C-alpha cells in the first residue's frame, strides 16, 4: 500500500553504538538497514533510500525526533515510524501519534518485542 521498499529499515539515533548493535540485530532478522546519527543525516539518506519503517530516537541534538517526524511525514505520510525514547524526555504520546508515530518504544526495549513489531509493520506495509 505505502510506496516503500519492504524489508528496508532506517535507524536514526545520535548514540552510535546503539545504531551499530541495532543494525547488526536487524540484519540478522533479515532486514536491509541504513543508519543515520542525526535528523539531518536521516533526511539525506531518505533521498536515496526508501525504507518501509523508520526507527528514530526522539531526544537528539540539532533536529530532534519530533521535527524529523514532521519532515518524514511530509515526504511519505504512510511510512510507519517508530519513536524510541528513554522514558524521561517528557513527551506527549498523543501528540507524537498525531504526528505520525505508529508506536512508541521505551528504552531499554525488549529485542524480541522489537522483532515482532517490525514483522507486524512490514506485514501492514505489504498489504
Amino acid at each position, binding site marked *: 500500500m505505502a510506496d516503500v521498499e519492504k524489508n528496508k529499515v532506517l535507524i536514526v539515533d545520535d548514540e552510535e553504538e546503539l545504531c551499530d548493535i541495532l543494525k547488526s540485530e536487524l540484519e540478522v532478522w533479515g532486514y536491509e538497514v541504513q543508519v543515520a546519527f542525526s535528523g539531518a543525516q536521516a533526511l539525506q539518506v531518505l533521498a536515496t533510500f526508501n525504507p518501509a519503517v523508520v526507527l528514530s530516537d526522539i531526544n537528539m541534538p540539532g533536529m530532534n525526533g519530533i521535527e524529523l517526524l514532521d519532515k518524514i511525514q511530509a515526504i511519505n505520510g504512510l511510512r510507519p515510524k517508530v519513536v524510541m525514547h*528513554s*522514558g*524521561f*524526555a517528557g513527551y506527549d504520546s498523543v501528540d507524537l501519534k498525531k504526528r505520525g508515530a505508529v508506536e512508541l518504544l*521505551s528504552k*531499554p526495549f525488549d*529485542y524480541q518485542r522489537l522483532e515482532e513489531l517490525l514483522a507486524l509493520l512490514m506485514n501492514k506495509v505489504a498489504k
Partner: protein
Amino acid sequence: MNSSHGFSITASRINRKLACLILISSFAFAIISIGVNFWIAYKHELQVKSQALSHIEKSMLGSIGKSLWYLDDMLLKQNAEGVLATMDIISVSIRDHAGTEHVHTVKDGLSSEITSSAYDVSYPLTRDSESGREQIGSLIIKITNYYFYQRLKEKILIGLLIESLKIFLLSILIMAFVQLVVTSAVSQISNFFKRGLGGLKDSSALVVVRRLHFGHDELDEFVEEYNKLAEQNKIAKLRLTDELTQKEQALNALSRMASLGELAGNLGHEINNPLAILFGYANKIRRTGDKSTDPVLRAEILDLAEKVSKLCHRIQSTTKGLSVLARTSDAEERKTEEIGIMLDEVLALVTEKARSAGIKISSQVDDPRFQISCNRIMIGQVLINLLNNSFHAIKKFENPWVKIETACSENAIIIRIIDCGLGISNEVCKNVFLPFFTTKPVGEGTGLGLSVALKIIKAHGGDLKINENNPNTTFEILLPRAPMESAVKAA
C-alpha cells in the same frame, strides 16, 4: 518611664484648648455680669443722690428760710456748711429776694475736672405769712457728677478684679481635674501609639495609669477593648507566622523535589540509552554462544548472556522507579492494566527498601487479572507513596510489617495498604489529604504526597481514604474496573 506617661500639663494640647475655651466663655460671662452690676450700681448711686437732695429739701429749707428772714448770718452759715457736707455738693450760696448773696461757701481743693462736670440746682426759700406762702430768697447748690463717676469706676474695677480671680481659680481647678481624670490618660495612650507600640506591627498591651479614678469609665473600656484586640492580633500574627514558615519550608522542599526530579530525569536518560545497547549486546552474545559447537562453552556463554540480561532488567526496574520521581510520564495516557502485574512492579521497586529497613512486606491479591484503565506510572506513584509513608511511620516498631490486600467486586477493586501502626489520630485524619500537611520533620516530607495521590486517584474515577474501622493503619484505594470495550481493545 514617667516621661512616657506624660503627666505634664503644658505638653497637653487638650489642656491648652480647654484653657482657651474656659477663658473665652468666662470672659463673655464676666462682661455680662459686669454690665448688670454696673447698671445696678448706677441705679443705686442715683437713688442715694436723690435721697440726699430730698433730705435737704424737706428738712433744711425751712430752717434756712427762717434764718434768712431774721438775717441771722451765723445760723445761715451753719446751715450752708450743713448742706455742703452732703455728698457731691461742692458749693452752696444763699440769696435773698433782691438777689443779694448772704452766704457763699465752697469746698476746698476743687480741681477743674470736678467743677467742669458740675451743675446748679436752685431751691426757693419761703415764709408762711397771712397772705399765704411767699418766697423770700433762694438756696443755690452746685452738684458735681465727678464723684458719682469715680464711685462707679471703683465698683466696676473691683467687680472686674473679683470676676477675673474667680475665672482664674475656676480654670485652674477644672484643668487640673481634667488633667488628672482625662488628659493624662489620653496623653499616655497617644504616647503609646507614637512609640509604635500599638497597631498591627507590635501588639503590646496598653497600660494607662489613672491618678484620680472615680470607678470604671469609657477610658477604661477603651483600654480593655484595645487590649482584647491586641491579644487577638497577637494570636493571629503568631498563627500567620507559623503558617508562613510551614509554607516556606514546603516550598523549599518542593523546589528541592523539582531539582531532584530534573536530576532523576537526566540520570534515567543517561542510564536507559546504554542499557538499550547492553540489551542488544546480551542478545548478540546469546546468539553467538548458540552457534558454538562446544556444548560446555555454549552452555557457559548462554548462562553468562542470561545473567547479563537479568542484571539489565534489574537496572531497568530501578530506572522505572526514577521515572516516577521525574514525573515525566504522560499523565493523559491511560491503558488497561492488570492489577497483579502493576502490584508486582511496585513491589519490585520497594522490596529492597523494605528489606534494608527490616520491614516484612507481603501481598495478597484475590484476582491478579482484574483490569483497570489507568496510567500505570501514576498509580504506581500513588502506591509507592503510600508504602513509603507506611515504612516511615513504622520503622521504629518491633517486627514491622506492611501488607497489600485487594478485594475485587463486579465493578471495582479496593487496594488496601495496611501496616502494623495503630491507626491515625483524628486530628491528623482530618488534614491528611490537605496540600502541605505533613507529620514528618522539616525537610523530610513535602506534605504533597497524599494530596497529589488523592488527586490522581480521583482523576481515575476512584477514591482514596483511611479505613478507621481497622485496628491497624489502613489506606484504601478504590478504582473502577476497566470498561469492557477498552478491555477488548487491549486484548
